[in-house]
Protein backbone atom coordinates (compact mmCIF):
# COMPACT_ATOMS: atom_id res chain seq x y z
CA UNK A 1 0.00 0.00 0.00
CA UNK A 2 1.35 3.45 -0.83
CA UNK A 3 1.98 5.57 2.24
CA UNK A 4 -0.10 8.70 2.44
CA UNK A 5 1.88 11.66 3.69
CA UNK A 6 -0.03 13.97 6.03
CA UNK A 7 -1.37 17.11 4.35
CA UNK A 8 0.91 20.11 4.76
CA UNK A 9 0.18 22.79 7.32
CA UNK A 10 0.27 26.54 6.65
CA UNK A 11 3.67 26.54 8.33
CA UNK A 12 5.02 23.79 6.05
CA UNK A 13 3.99 25.75 2.97
CA UNK A 14 5.44 29.05 4.25
CA UNK A 15 8.72 27.35 5.19
CA UNK A 16 8.94 25.89 1.73
CA UNK A 17 8.30 29.31 0.15
CA UNK A 18 11.07 30.81 2.31
CA UNK A 19 13.45 28.10 1.15
CA UNK A 20 12.56 28.63 -2.49
CA UNK A 21 13.31 32.37 -2.46
CA UNK A 22 16.46 32.17 -0.35
CA UNK A 23 19.80 32.56 -2.15
CA UNK A 24 21.17 29.18 -3.08
CA UNK A 25 24.18 27.83 -1.16
CA UNK A 26 26.16 28.03 -4.43
CA UNK A 27 25.44 31.74 -4.72
CA UNK A 28 26.41 32.33 -1.09
CA UNK A 29 29.67 30.50 -1.64
CA UNK A 30 30.35 32.49 -4.81
CA UNK A 31 29.71 35.75 -2.93
CA UNK A 32 32.14 34.76 -0.20
CA UNK A 33 34.75 33.64 -2.73
CA UNK A 34 34.48 36.92 -4.61
CA UNK A 35 34.80 39.29 -1.72
CA UNK A 36 37.63 37.23 -0.31
CA UNK A 37 39.36 37.34 -3.67
CA UNK A 38 39.00 41.13 -3.78
CA UNK A 39 40.23 41.36 -0.18
CA UNK A 40 43.33 39.29 -0.99
CA UNK A 41 44.03 41.43 -4.06
CA UNK A 42 43.95 44.64 -2.04
CA UNK A 43 46.23 43.04 0.55
CA UNK A 44 48.68 41.40 -1.89
CA UNK A 45 52.37 42.23 -1.33
CA UNK A 46 52.64 44.90 -4.06
CA UNK A 47 49.23 46.47 -3.44
CA UNK A 48 49.38 50.23 -2.92
CA UNK A 49 47.01 49.72 0.00
CA UNK A 50 49.08 47.02 1.70
CA UNK A 51 50.23 49.39 4.46
CA UNK A 52 46.62 50.30 5.31
CA UNK A 53 45.54 46.83 6.30
CA UNK A 54 42.57 46.73 3.86
CA UNK A 55 39.50 44.89 5.10
CA UNK A 56 36.74 43.82 2.70
CA UNK A 57 33.49 42.54 4.18
CA UNK A 58 29.87 42.19 3.17
CA UNK A 59 27.25 44.57 4.53
CA UNK A 60 23.49 44.74 4.00
CA UNK A 61 21.26 41.80 3.22
CA UNK A 62 24.06 39.30 2.60
CA UNK A 63 25.50 40.08 6.01
CA UNK A 64 22.20 39.84 7.89
CA UNK A 65 20.95 36.78 6.02
CA UNK A 66 18.01 38.38 4.25
CA UNK A 67 19.26 38.31 0.66
CA UNK A 68 16.91 36.74 -1.84
CA UNK A 69 17.48 34.68 -4.91
CA UNK A 70 17.06 36.81 -8.07
CA UNK A 71 13.53 36.70 -9.46
CA UNK A 72 14.68 35.49 -12.87
CA UNK A 73 17.92 33.85 -13.96
CA UNK A 74 18.93 36.99 -15.81
CA UNK A 75 18.39 39.33 -12.84
CA UNK A 76 21.44 40.76 -11.12
CA UNK A 77 22.58 39.74 -7.68
CA UNK A 78 23.50 42.85 -5.69
CA UNK A 79 26.21 42.48 -3.10
CA UNK A 80 27.18 45.40 -0.90
CA UNK A 81 30.70 45.42 0.48
CA UNK A 82 32.70 47.76 2.63
CA UNK A 83 36.38 48.34 2.03
CA UNK A 84 37.90 49.71 5.22
CA UNK A 85 41.43 51.04 5.48
CA UNK A 86 43.40 51.58 8.64
CA UNK A 87 43.82 55.34 8.43
CA UNK A 88 42.43 58.51 9.95
CA UNK A 89 40.39 61.39 8.58
CA UNK A 90 43.16 63.98 9.00
CA UNK A 91 45.62 62.00 6.86
CA UNK A 92 43.83 62.32 3.53
CA UNK A 93 40.78 63.77 1.83
CA UNK A 94 37.67 61.71 1.07
CA UNK A 95 38.62 61.95 -2.57
CA UNK A 96 42.12 60.60 -1.92
CA UNK A 97 40.70 57.59 -0.06
CA UNK A 98 38.12 56.99 -2.79
CA UNK A 99 40.74 57.17 -5.55
CA UNK A 100 43.33 55.08 -3.69
CA UNK A 101 40.83 52.25 -3.34
CA UNK A 102 39.51 52.88 -6.85
CA UNK A 103 42.96 52.39 -8.31
CA UNK A 104 43.27 48.94 -6.77
CA UNK A 105 39.72 47.99 -7.74
CA UNK A 106 40.58 48.98 -11.32
CA UNK A 107 43.71 46.87 -11.28
CA UNK A 108 41.69 43.97 -9.85
CA UNK A 109 39.22 44.28 -12.71
CA UNK A 110 42.06 44.37 -15.24
CA UNK A 111 43.90 41.44 -13.68
CA UNK A 112 40.68 39.41 -13.81
CA UNK A 113 39.91 40.51 -17.42
CA UNK A 114 36.56 41.90 -16.38
CA UNK A 115 34.56 43.35 -19.25
CA UNK A 116 33.19 46.34 -17.34
CA UNK A 117 35.42 49.08 -15.97
CA UNK A 118 34.56 49.78 -12.32
CA UNK A 119 32.32 52.83 -12.01
CA UNK A 120 32.98 55.73 -9.67
CA UNK A 121 29.58 56.28 -8.01
CA UNK A 122 28.57 58.85 -5.40
CA UNK A 123 29.76 56.84 -2.39
CA UNK A 124 31.07 53.60 -3.80
CA UNK A 125 32.81 51.77 -6.60
CA UNK A 126 30.63 49.49 -8.67
CA UNK A 127 32.10 46.32 -10.02
CA UNK A 128 30.16 44.18 -12.48
CA UNK A 129 30.91 40.54 -13.08
CA UNK A 130 29.69 39.44 -16.49
CA UNK A 131 29.69 35.69 -16.08
CA UNK A 132 26.99 33.10 -15.48
CA UNK A 133 26.27 34.74 -12.15
CA UNK A 134 25.17 38.26 -12.83
CA UNK A 135 26.94 39.91 -9.91
CA UNK A 136 26.87 43.59 -9.20
CA UNK A 137 29.07 44.68 -6.33
CA UNK A 138 29.03 48.05 -4.61
CA UNK A 139 32.27 48.64 -2.73
CA UNK A 140 32.07 51.34 -0.05
CA UNK A 141 35.45 52.95 0.73
CA UNK A 142 35.69 53.85 4.42
CA UNK A 143 37.84 54.22 7.51
CA UNK A 144 37.05 53.39 11.10
CA UNK A 145 35.42 56.27 12.99
CA UNK A 146 34.51 55.04 16.47
CA UNK A 147 35.23 58.11 18.57
CA UNK A 148 33.30 60.65 16.50
CA UNK A 149 30.35 58.26 16.42
CA UNK A 150 30.40 57.62 20.17
CA UNK A 151 30.68 61.28 21.10
CA UNK A 152 27.89 62.26 18.73
CA UNK A 153 25.61 59.62 20.23
CA UNK A 154 26.30 60.77 23.79
CA UNK A 155 26.02 64.44 22.85
CA UNK A 156 22.57 63.70 21.44
CA UNK A 157 21.55 61.76 24.53
CA UNK A 158 21.65 58.21 23.14
CA UNK A 159 23.70 56.89 26.04
CA UNK A 160 22.57 53.28 25.83
CA UNK A 161 23.69 53.10 22.22
CA UNK A 162 26.89 55.05 22.92
CA UNK A 163 28.04 52.38 25.38
CA UNK A 164 27.06 49.43 23.18
CA UNK A 165 30.62 48.57 22.15
CA UNK A 166 29.63 45.84 19.75
CA UNK A 167 27.73 48.44 17.74
CA UNK A 168 29.97 51.50 18.15
CA UNK A 169 33.21 49.72 17.24
CA UNK A 170 31.84 49.18 13.73
CA UNK A 171 31.25 52.90 12.99
CA UNK A 172 32.89 54.22 9.83
CA UNK A 173 33.56 57.49 8.01
CA UNK A 174 32.67 57.29 4.33
CA UNK A 175 33.32 59.35 1.21
CA UNK A 176 30.68 61.21 -0.78
CA UNK A 177 31.35 63.03 -4.05
CA UNK A 178 28.56 65.52 -3.30
CA UNK A 179 29.93 66.38 0.15
CA UNK A 180 31.39 69.95 0.35
CA UNK A 181 34.43 68.56 2.15
CA UNK A 182 35.09 65.84 -0.41
CA UNK A 183 38.30 67.37 -1.75
CA UNK A 184 39.72 69.05 1.38
CA UNK A 185 41.42 67.81 4.51
CA UNK A 186 38.70 67.91 7.15
CA UNK A 187 37.54 65.89 10.13
CA UNK A 188 33.97 66.38 9.00
CA UNK A 189 33.30 63.23 6.97
CA UNK A 190 29.93 61.62 6.35
CA UNK A 191 29.44 58.87 8.88
CA UNK A 192 27.74 55.51 8.67
CA UNK A 193 27.51 52.20 10.48
CA UNK A 194 26.25 49.38 8.27
CA UNK A 195 28.05 46.66 10.25
CA UNK A 196 26.67 48.16 13.48
CA UNK A 197 23.18 47.85 11.99
CA UNK A 198 23.87 44.16 11.43
CA UNK A 199 24.97 43.79 15.05
CA UNK A 200 21.73 45.47 16.17
CA UNK A 201 19.68 43.19 13.93
CA UNK A 202 21.37 40.08 15.30
CA UNK A 203 20.84 41.35 18.86
CA UNK A 204 17.11 41.78 18.16
CA UNK A 205 16.80 38.04 17.52
CA UNK A 206 19.60 36.81 19.79
CA UNK A 207 17.49 34.25 21.69
CA UNK A 208 16.01 32.74 18.56
CA UNK A 209 19.42 32.61 16.93
CA UNK A 210 20.71 30.66 19.93
CA UNK A 211 17.64 28.40 19.78
CA UNK A 212 18.15 27.68 16.08
CA UNK A 213 21.81 26.87 16.67
CA UNK A 214 20.87 24.47 19.44
CA UNK A 215 18.34 22.79 17.15
CA UNK A 216 20.95 22.46 14.41
CA UNK A 217 23.39 21.01 16.91
CA UNK A 218 20.80 18.47 18.10
CA UNK A 219 20.11 17.41 14.52
CA UNK A 220 23.83 16.83 14.09
CA UNK A 221 26.16 19.47 12.72
CA UNK A 222 29.82 19.52 11.72
CA UNK A 223 30.57 21.83 14.65
CA UNK A 224 32.05 20.53 17.89
CA UNK A 225 30.19 23.01 20.13
CA UNK A 226 27.00 25.04 19.80
CA UNK A 227 29.10 28.18 20.34
CA UNK A 228 31.15 27.32 17.25
CA UNK A 229 28.15 27.49 14.94
CA UNK A 230 28.40 30.74 12.93
CA UNK A 231 25.32 32.96 12.59
CA UNK A 232 25.05 32.32 8.88
CA UNK A 233 24.74 28.56 9.39
CA UNK A 234 21.20 28.99 10.69
CA UNK A 235 18.25 31.11 9.69
CA UNK A 236 15.63 32.50 12.06
CA UNK A 237 11.94 33.01 11.34
CA UNK A 238 12.60 36.78 11.40
CA UNK A 239 15.11 36.50 8.55
CA UNK A 240 12.79 34.23 6.57
CA UNK A 241 9.78 36.49 7.14
CA UNK A 242 11.77 39.51 5.92
CA UNK A 243 12.84 37.58 2.82
CA UNK A 244 9.22 36.69 2.05
CA UNK A 245 8.06 40.29 2.61
CA UNK A 246 10.85 41.70 0.43
CA UNK A 247 9.97 39.35 -2.40
CA UNK A 248 6.30 40.30 -2.05
CA UNK A 249 7.34 43.95 -2.28
CA UNK A 250 9.61 43.36 -5.30
CA UNK A 251 6.86 41.80 -7.37
CA UNK A 252 4.20 44.26 -6.24
CA UNK A 253 6.41 47.09 -7.52
CA UNK A 254 7.88 45.26 -10.51
CA UNK A 255 6.68 48.13 -12.73
CA UNK A 256 7.76 50.93 -10.39
CA UNK A 257 10.96 49.74 -8.67
CA UNK A 258 12.10 53.36 -8.23
CA UNK A 259 9.54 54.09 -5.54
CA UNK A 260 9.15 50.74 -3.82
CA UNK A 261 9.52 50.63 -0.03
CA UNK A 262 13.23 50.20 0.67
CA UNK A 263 14.57 47.02 2.24
CA UNK A 264 16.13 48.76 5.24
CA UNK A 265 12.68 50.11 6.20
CA UNK A 266 11.02 46.70 5.95
CA UNK A 267 13.92 45.08 7.81
CA UNK A 268 14.01 47.63 10.62
CA UNK A 269 10.26 47.70 11.23
CA UNK A 270 10.00 43.91 11.04
CA UNK A 271 12.81 43.47 13.56
CA UNK A 272 11.07 45.90 15.94
CA UNK A 273 7.73 44.10 15.66
CA UNK A 274 9.25 40.62 15.97
CA UNK A 275 9.01 39.21 19.47
CA UNK A 276 10.92 35.96 19.07
CA UNK A 277 8.11 33.97 17.46
CA UNK A 278 9.39 30.53 16.43
CA UNK A 279 7.08 29.84 13.49
CA UNK A 280 6.66 31.75 10.24
CA UNK A 281 2.89 31.89 10.83
CA UNK A 282 3.42 33.65 14.17
CA UNK A 283 6.28 35.81 12.91
CA UNK A 284 4.38 37.10 9.89
CA UNK A 285 1.34 37.69 12.11
CA UNK A 286 3.35 39.72 14.64
CA UNK A 287 5.26 41.65 11.98
CA UNK A 288 2.31 42.51 9.74
CA UNK A 289 0.08 43.45 12.66
CA UNK A 290 2.66 45.60 14.40
CA UNK A 291 5.34 46.92 12.06
CA UNK A 292 3.82 50.33 11.33
CA UNK A 293 3.62 51.07 15.07
CA UNK A 294 7.32 51.88 14.81
CA UNK A 295 6.83 54.64 12.28
CA UNK A 296 7.00 57.74 14.48
CA UNK A 297 5.56 61.13 13.71
CA UNK A 298 7.92 64.00 14.60
CA UNK A 299 6.68 67.54 13.88
CA UNK A 300 4.16 66.17 11.42
CA UNK A 301 6.84 64.22 9.57
CA UNK A 302 7.11 60.42 9.48
CA UNK A 303 10.25 59.04 11.04
CA UNK A 304 11.73 55.58 10.83
CA UNK A 305 14.83 55.82 12.94
CA UNK A 306 18.03 54.09 12.04
CA UNK A 307 18.35 51.99 15.22
CA UNK A 308 22.13 52.55 15.31
CA UNK A 309 21.90 56.24 14.41
CA UNK A 310 18.62 57.63 15.77
CA UNK A 311 19.24 61.02 14.14
CA UNK A 312 18.95 59.39 10.73
CA UNK A 313 15.48 58.95 9.26
CA UNK A 314 15.18 56.04 6.83
CA UNK A 315 11.97 57.67 5.58
CA UNK A 316 13.51 61.10 4.96
CA UNK A 317 12.56 60.95 1.27
CA UNK A 318 8.86 60.49 2.05
CA UNK A 319 8.40 64.23 2.55
CA UNK A 320 9.61 65.27 -0.91
CA UNK A 321 8.26 62.16 -2.63
CA UNK A 322 4.88 61.38 -1.11
CA UNK A 323 4.41 58.43 -3.47
CA UNK A 324 7.09 56.63 -1.45
CA UNK A 325 4.99 56.98 1.69
CA UNK A 326 1.82 55.97 -0.15
CA UNK A 327 3.61 52.97 -1.63
CA UNK A 328 4.80 51.82 1.78
CA UNK A 329 1.28 51.86 3.21
CA UNK A 330 -0.30 50.33 0.15
CA UNK A 331 2.32 47.57 0.21
CA UNK A 332 1.61 46.95 3.90
CA UNK A 333 -2.10 46.86 3.14
CA UNK A 334 -1.61 44.29 0.40
CA UNK A 335 0.76 42.19 2.47
CA UNK A 336 -1.73 42.16 5.35
CA UNK A 337 -4.52 41.11 3.02
CA UNK A 338 -2.50 38.47 1.16
CA UNK A 339 -0.90 36.80 4.17
CA UNK A 340 -3.96 37.37 6.38
CA UNK A 341 -6.12 35.62 3.80
CA UNK A 342 -3.69 32.75 3.52
CA UNK A 343 -3.07 32.28 7.24
CA UNK A 344 -6.52 33.04 8.64
CA UNK A 345 -9.02 32.29 5.89
CA UNK A 346 -7.64 29.69 3.51
CA UNK A 347 -6.81 26.04 3.87
CA UNK A 348 -3.07 25.29 3.79
CA UNK A 349 -3.07 24.26 0.15
CA UNK A 350 -5.19 27.20 -1.05
CA UNK A 351 -2.72 29.94 -1.88
CA UNK A 352 -4.57 33.23 -2.51
CA UNK A 353 -4.09 34.65 -6.01
CA UNK A 354 -2.57 37.84 -4.58
CA UNK A 355 0.11 35.81 -2.84
CA UNK A 356 0.86 33.75 -5.96
CA UNK A 357 1.18 36.93 -8.03
CA UNK A 358 3.35 38.72 -5.51
CA UNK A 359 5.63 35.82 -4.58
CA UNK A 360 6.02 34.57 -8.13
CA UNK A 361 4.27 31.82 -10.04
CA UNK A 362 7.60 30.04 -10.52
CA UNK A 363 8.23 29.88 -6.79
CA UNK A 364 4.73 28.55 -6.27
CA UNK A 365 5.31 25.91 -8.93
CA UNK A 366 8.31 24.66 -7.01
CA UNK A 367 6.33 24.70 -3.76
CA UNK A 368 3.58 22.75 -5.49
CA UNK A 369 6.03 20.06 -6.49
CA UNK A 370 6.27 19.22 -2.81
CA UNK A 371 2.65 19.67 -1.88
CA UNK A 372 -0.48 19.21 -3.91
CA UNK A 373 -1.67 22.82 -3.90
CA UNK A 374 -5.24 23.19 -5.09
CA UNK A 375 -6.41 26.34 -6.79
CA UNK A 376 -10.02 26.06 -5.64
CA UNK A 377 -11.57 29.30 -4.47
CA UNK A 378 -14.50 27.65 -2.69
CA UNK A 379 -14.62 28.28 1.03
CA UNK A 380 -13.72 25.33 3.16
CA UNK A 381 -16.64 23.53 4.78
CA UNK A 382 -15.89 21.47 7.86
CA UNK A 383 -17.92 18.61 9.27
CA UNK A 384 -20.09 19.56 12.26
CA UNK A 385 -18.16 17.82 15.09
CA UNK A 386 -14.86 19.22 13.83
CA UNK A 387 -16.44 22.66 13.68
CA UNK A 388 -17.61 22.45 17.29
CA UNK A 389 -14.12 21.45 18.41
CA UNK A 390 -12.62 24.33 16.43
CA UNK A 391 -15.07 26.86 17.91
CA UNK A 392 -14.68 25.56 21.45
CA UNK A 393 -10.89 25.94 21.17
CA UNK A 394 -11.36 29.56 20.13
CA UNK A 395 -13.72 30.10 23.08
CA UNK A 396 -11.15 28.61 25.46
CA UNK A 397 -8.42 30.88 24.11
CA UNK A 398 -10.58 33.96 24.77
CA UNK A 399 -11.12 32.73 28.34
CA UNK A 400 -7.37 32.16 28.74
CA UNK A 401 -6.72 35.74 27.66
CA UNK A 402 -9.45 36.97 30.01
CA UNK A 403 -11.08 39.14 27.36
CA UNK A 404 -14.60 37.69 27.52
CA UNK A 405 -17.49 40.07 26.87
CA UNK A 406 -21.20 39.27 26.91
CA UNK A 407 -23.75 40.46 24.33
CA UNK A 408 -26.69 42.61 25.52
CA UNK A 409 -29.70 44.48 24.15
CA UNK A 410 -31.25 47.63 25.55
CA UNK A 411 -34.82 46.39 25.18
CA UNK A 412 -36.58 43.06 25.44
Amino acid at each position, binding site marked *: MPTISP*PPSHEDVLQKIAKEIDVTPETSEAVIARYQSLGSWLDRPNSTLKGYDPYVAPQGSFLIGTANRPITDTDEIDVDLICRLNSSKGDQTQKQLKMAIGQEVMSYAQAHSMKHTPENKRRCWTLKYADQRNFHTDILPCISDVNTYRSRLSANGYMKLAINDRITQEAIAITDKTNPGYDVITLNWPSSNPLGFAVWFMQEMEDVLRYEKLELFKRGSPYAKVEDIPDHAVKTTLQKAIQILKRHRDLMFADDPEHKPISIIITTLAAHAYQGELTLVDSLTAILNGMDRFVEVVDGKRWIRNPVNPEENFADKWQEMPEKERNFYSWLDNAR*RDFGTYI*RVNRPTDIPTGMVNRLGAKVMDRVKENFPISKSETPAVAAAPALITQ*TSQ*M*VERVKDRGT*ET*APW*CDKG
Partner: protein
Amino acid sequence: MSEPSTLTIEDVRRALGFAQPLLKFTESDDAIFAYGVFIVSDGPHPNGPAKRFEIKCFFFKDFPKREPIVIENGGVIPRIADRHMYKNGVCCLCVWQEWLVLSQDTSFQAFCDGPLYNFFLSQTWFEQTGEWPFDERSHGAKGIAESISQLLGFDVNEQQANLYSQAISAKKVKGHWPCPCGSNKKLRDCHLDEVISLREQLGAGTILGLQSLLQNLMKAERET
Protein backbone atom coordinates in the same frame (compact mmCIF):
# COMPACT_ATOMS: atom_id res chain seq x y z
CA MET B 1 -2.09 65.61 11.02
CA SER B 2 -4.64 63.96 13.28
CA GLU B 3 -4.91 64.54 17.00
CA PRO B 4 -3.36 61.67 18.93
CA SER B 5 -6.73 60.75 20.40
CA THR B 6 -8.44 60.47 17.02
CA LEU B 7 -9.04 57.05 15.53
CA THR B 8 -7.42 56.92 12.09
CA ILE B 9 -7.86 54.57 9.16
CA GLU B 10 -4.31 53.41 9.85
CA ASP B 11 -5.34 52.34 13.37
CA VAL B 12 -8.24 50.40 11.88
CA ARG B 13 -6.03 48.77 9.26
CA ARG B 14 -3.46 47.86 11.91
CA ALA B 15 -6.11 46.24 14.07
CA LEU B 16 -8.08 44.50 11.31
CA GLY B 17 -6.06 44.48 8.07
CA PHE B 18 -4.36 41.18 8.78
CA ALA B 19 -6.87 39.64 11.21
CA GLN B 20 -9.87 40.36 8.98
CA PRO B 21 -8.42 40.32 5.47
CA LEU B 22 -11.85 40.12 3.81
CA LEU B 23 -12.92 43.52 5.14
CA LYS B 24 -12.42 46.74 3.19
CA PHE B 25 -12.07 50.19 4.70
CA THR B 26 -13.03 53.71 3.74
CA GLU B 27 -13.16 56.95 5.63
CA SER B 28 -15.62 59.80 6.13
CA ASP B 29 -15.36 62.96 8.21
CA ASP B 30 -16.35 61.37 11.47
CA ALA B 31 -15.98 57.62 10.99
CA ILE B 32 -14.04 54.77 9.44
CA PHE B 33 -16.37 52.49 7.50
CA ALA B 34 -15.53 48.77 7.29
CA TYR B 35 -17.48 46.31 5.18
CA GLY B 36 -17.17 42.82 3.80
CA VAL B 37 -16.87 39.40 5.35
CA PHE B 38 -15.98 38.96 9.01
CA ILE B 39 -14.28 35.65 9.68
CA VAL B 40 -14.48 33.76 12.95
CA SER B 41 -10.87 32.63 13.08
CA ASP B 42 -7.97 33.17 15.45
CA GLY B 43 -5.19 31.72 13.35
CA PRO B 44 -4.42 29.07 10.76
CA HIS B 45 -6.80 26.12 10.68
CA PRO B 46 -6.80 23.19 8.25
CA ASN B 47 -10.48 23.85 7.48
CA GLY B 48 -10.43 27.66 7.44
CA PRO B 49 -12.64 29.89 9.61
CA ALA B 50 -15.41 28.44 11.77
CA LYS B 51 -17.89 30.88 10.26
CA ARG B 52 -18.24 33.96 8.05
CA PHE B 53 -20.59 36.91 8.52
CA GLU B 54 -21.36 39.74 6.09
CA ILE B 55 -20.97 42.92 8.09
CA LYS B 56 -20.60 46.64 7.89
CA CYS B 57 -19.26 48.79 10.69
CA PHE B 58 -18.96 52.43 11.60
CA PHE B 59 -15.98 53.11 13.83
CA PHE B 60 -16.34 56.70 14.97
CA LYS B 61 -13.22 58.81 15.12
CA ASP B 62 -13.91 59.82 18.72
CA PHE B 63 -13.48 56.19 19.77
CA PRO B 64 -13.99 55.01 22.49
CA LYS B 65 -16.34 57.83 23.43
CA ARG B 66 -18.90 56.72 20.89
CA GLU B 67 -19.78 53.07 20.67
CA PRO B 68 -19.09 51.62 17.21
CA ILE B 69 -22.08 50.50 15.15
CA VAL B 70 -21.80 46.97 13.78
CA ILE B 71 -24.42 45.61 11.38
CA GLU B 72 -24.80 41.99 10.32
CA ASN B 73 -26.31 42.42 6.88
CA GLY B 74 -26.10 38.87 5.55
CA GLY B 75 -29.24 37.93 7.48
CA VAL B 76 -27.48 34.94 9.05
CA ILE B 77 -28.32 35.88 12.64
CA PRO B 78 -32.07 36.11 13.43
CA ARG B 79 -32.91 39.74 14.14
CA ILE B 80 -34.43 39.18 17.56
CA ALA B 81 -33.47 40.48 21.00
CA ASP B 82 -32.74 36.96 22.21
CA ARG B 83 -29.92 36.84 19.66
CA HIS B 84 -28.80 40.33 20.74
CA MET B 85 -29.83 41.83 17.43
CA TYR B 86 -32.04 44.76 16.48
CA LYS B 87 -34.51 44.47 13.63
CA ASN B 88 -32.28 46.63 11.42
CA GLY B 89 -29.37 44.22 11.78
CA VAL B 90 -27.46 46.24 14.38
CA CYS B 91 -25.56 43.96 16.74
CA CYS B 92 -25.60 44.52 20.52
CA LEU B 93 -21.99 43.64 21.10
CA CYS B 94 -21.87 44.34 24.84
CA VAL B 95 -22.77 46.90 27.51
CA TRP B 96 -20.38 49.55 26.19
CA GLN B 97 -19.97 51.46 29.46
CA GLU B 98 -19.25 48.20 31.29
CA TRP B 99 -16.51 47.31 28.82
CA LEU B 100 -15.02 50.78 29.16
CA VAL B 101 -14.87 50.43 32.95
CA LEU B 102 -13.90 46.77 33.19
CA SER B 103 -11.44 46.34 30.36
CA GLN B 104 -7.80 46.91 31.23
CA ASP B 105 -7.30 48.17 27.71
CA THR B 106 -9.88 50.24 25.82
CA SER B 107 -7.81 50.74 22.67
CA PHE B 108 -9.38 50.09 19.28
CA GLN B 109 -7.24 46.96 19.00
CA ALA B 110 -8.66 45.70 22.31
CA PHE B 111 -12.19 46.40 21.05
CA CYS B 112 -11.54 44.32 17.93
CA ASP B 113 -9.96 41.46 19.87
CA GLY B 114 -12.64 41.78 22.57
CA PRO B 115 -16.30 42.76 22.03
CA LEU B 116 -16.23 42.63 18.21
CA TYR B 117 -14.59 39.21 17.87
CA ASN B 118 -16.39 37.82 20.94
CA PHE B 119 -19.80 38.74 19.54
CA PHE B 120 -19.38 36.76 16.33
CA LEU B 121 -17.62 33.91 18.12
CA SER B 122 -20.52 33.83 20.61
CA GLN B 123 -23.07 33.76 17.77
CA THR B 124 -21.17 30.89 16.12
CA TRP B 125 -21.06 28.92 19.37
CA PHE B 126 -24.71 29.68 20.12
CA GLU B 127 -25.71 28.33 16.74
CA GLN B 128 -23.76 25.15 17.37
CA THR B 129 -24.76 24.54 20.99
CA GLY B 130 -27.60 26.89 21.98
CA GLU B 131 -25.36 28.41 24.67
CA TRP B 132 -23.57 31.72 25.05
CA PRO B 133 -19.90 30.96 25.70
CA PHE B 134 -19.21 34.15 27.65
CA ASP B 135 -22.73 34.40 29.08
CA GLU B 136 -25.11 37.16 28.00
CA ARG B 137 -26.56 40.21 29.67
CA SER B 138 -30.31 40.30 30.27
CA HIS B 139 -32.18 42.78 28.10
CA GLY B 140 -32.71 46.34 29.23
CA ALA B 141 -32.14 47.68 32.74
CA LYS B 142 -31.69 44.22 34.23
CA GLY B 143 -28.65 43.71 32.03
CA ILE B 144 -27.15 46.97 33.28
CA ALA B 145 -27.76 45.85 36.86
CA GLU B 146 -25.79 42.73 35.98
CA SER B 147 -22.99 44.89 34.61
CA ILE B 148 -22.97 46.93 37.81
CA SER B 149 -22.98 43.71 39.87
CA GLN B 150 -19.90 42.64 37.93
CA LEU B 151 -18.19 45.92 38.79
CA LEU B 152 -19.23 45.82 42.45
CA GLY B 153 -18.26 42.20 42.85
CA PHE B 154 -21.66 41.15 44.29
CA ASP B 155 -25.18 40.74 42.91
CA VAL B 156 -27.63 43.63 43.02
CA ASN B 157 -31.06 44.22 41.46
CA GLU B 158 -31.91 47.30 39.38
CA GLN B 159 -32.96 49.47 42.36
CA GLN B 160 -29.90 48.53 44.38
CA ALA B 161 -27.68 49.04 41.32
CA ASN B 162 -29.13 52.52 40.91
CA LEU B 163 -28.54 53.44 44.56
CA TYR B 164 -25.04 52.00 44.60
CA SER B 165 -23.99 53.75 41.43
CA GLN B 166 -25.51 57.01 42.73
CA ALA B 167 -23.56 56.71 45.99
CA ILE B 168 -20.39 55.87 44.09
CA SER B 169 -20.79 58.57 41.46
CA ALA B 170 -21.89 61.41 43.75
CA LYS B 171 -19.42 64.20 44.46
CA LYS B 172 -19.71 63.53 48.20
CA VAL B 173 -21.19 60.63 50.15
CA LYS B 174 -23.84 61.68 52.66
CA GLY B 175 -24.30 59.43 55.68
CA HIS B 176 -28.03 60.07 55.94
CA TRP B 177 -28.73 58.55 52.50
CA PRO B 178 -30.63 55.26 52.49
CA CYS B 179 -28.21 52.36 52.29
CA PRO B 180 -28.26 50.90 48.75
CA CYS B 181 -28.36 47.34 50.11
CA GLY B 182 -32.10 47.71 50.73
CA SER B 183 -31.93 47.35 54.55
CA ASN B 184 -33.91 50.60 55.02
CA LYS B 185 -31.11 51.79 57.33
CA LYS B 186 -29.11 54.96 56.86
CA LEU B 187 -25.88 54.56 54.93
CA ARG B 188 -23.76 55.57 57.96
CA ASP B 189 -25.35 52.79 60.00
CA CYS B 190 -24.96 50.15 57.31
CA HIS B 191 -22.61 49.80 54.26
CA LEU B 192 -20.83 53.19 54.40
CA ASP B 193 -17.34 51.66 54.61
CA GLU B 194 -18.03 49.42 51.64
CA VAL B 195 -19.34 52.33 49.58
CA ILE B 196 -16.29 54.43 50.42
CA SER B 197 -13.92 51.64 49.49
CA LEU B 198 -15.83 50.99 46.23
CA ARG B 199 -15.52 54.69 45.38
CA GLU B 200 -11.78 54.46 45.88
CA GLN B 201 -11.55 51.24 43.97
CA LEU B 202 -13.64 52.23 40.96
CA GLY B 203 -13.00 55.96 40.88
CA ALA B 204 -15.91 58.31 41.41
CA GLY B 205 -16.56 59.16 37.74
CA THR B 206 -16.22 55.76 36.11
CA ILE B 207 -19.66 54.41 36.86
CA LEU B 208 -21.52 57.57 35.79
CA GLY B 209 -22.17 56.34 32.24
CA LEU B 210 -23.67 53.09 33.44
CA GLN B 211 -25.77 54.91 36.02
CA SER B 212 -27.39 57.30 33.55
CA LEU B 213 -27.98 54.45 31.11
CA LEU B 214 -29.62 52.46 33.90
CA GLN B 215 -31.82 55.39 34.96
CA ASN B 216 -32.96 56.04 31.39
CA LEU B 217 -33.81 52.40 30.83
CA MET B 218 -35.64 52.09 34.15
CA LYS B 219 -37.66 55.17 33.26
CA ALA B 220 -38.45 53.85 29.77
CA GLU B 221 -39.44 50.47 31.16
CA ARG B 222 -41.75 52.07 33.74
CA GLU B 223 -43.47 54.08 31.00
CA THR B 224 -44.22 51.12 28.75
